[in-house]
């Protein structure tokens, strides 16, 4: 194994799980997340020489996010002119559903499923900062690097997403609507 590959495996690949989790929260289908992560790792490897001294986790997650946006744009273009052979295969259950399915609502009774569905209903940019902070435990500076926005925007998005999640949760679980701060 050459030196670059060895350093890459030591510094970047330990964050593969984080990259996958992040991709799962960004993508609707697990298969799409796999593709995004694989493409992101390859891009990271090709640009690895530029990483010196940087935060490998934030750097890799930023590439995951960019790969997701690229793939999403391609999917949007395909959706404009749907062709029979372009229908995506169903790779398995999504980690999150973007819209509640009335038929499956009845089984979304347990707390975990409700929470994941509520998270999925948040705007993507808000969900991203919330998951990066609470699940990946990243600092504001790291989140700003991943999402390519100023730290002040990270703070305001975090505040909005937390308030919105709490309000949705109370509405869902307790039937008690609250104003979103």
């Amino acid at each position: 194994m050459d030196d670059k590959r060895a350093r890459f495996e030591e510094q970047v690949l330990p964050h593969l799980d984080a990259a996958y989790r992040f991709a799962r929260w960004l993508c609707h289908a697990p298969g799409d997340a796999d593709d995004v992560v694989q493409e992101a790792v390859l891009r990271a490897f090709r640009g690895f020489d530029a990483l010196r001294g940087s935060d490998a986790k934030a750097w890799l997650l930023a590439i995951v996010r960019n790969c997701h946006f690229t793939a999403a744009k391609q999917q949007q273009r395909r959706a404009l002119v749907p062709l029979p052979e372009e229908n995506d295969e169903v790779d398995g259950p999504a980690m999150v559903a973007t819209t509640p399915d009335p038929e499956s609502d009845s089984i979304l009774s347990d707390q975990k499923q409700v929470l994941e569905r509520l998270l999925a209903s948040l705007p993507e940019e808000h969900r991203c900062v919330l998951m990066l902070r609470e699940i990946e435990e990243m600092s504001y500076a790291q989140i700003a690097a991943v999402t390519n926005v100023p730290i002040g925007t990270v703070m305001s998005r975090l505040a909005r997403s937390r308030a919105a999640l709490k309000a949705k949760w109370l509405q869902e679980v307790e039937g008690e609507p609250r104003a979103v701060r």
Partner: protein
Amino acid sequence: MQCAESLRVQAYFDGEVDPVTAAEIERHADHCNECRVLLEDLQKVRTALRRDVSYAAAPPALRAQVLRALDQEGPAGQAGAATAPPAANVAAAGGLSRALVLDGRVQRHRRRRDCSGHRHLCGAAGCVESVDR
């Protein structure tokens, strides 16, 4: 009406302030009911998320697939970097443009289902995409 200190209180909760600021915010929260409630709410949201949200690890198959793809990148990862300009949005990732083109081709390729089951770098005998890749 939201307390003007709410963002600083959130930063305190997230461990993003220095000790002096932390002490100021603690003194403020002692006298501000809204900020005390905010701190409680922030903790509830954090507890719920860390307790109930899935912590998916990368599947072993994906990990193996990534390692195989890296093997095919060559010893110094020049597969893309040698021929493509750097991306505007990820300046560090050389070879991005070529990767984007290939990514689109591979995705369309997979969706045509004539190589269903293959992923990137499928390498199947007779698969034209594997030759280009």
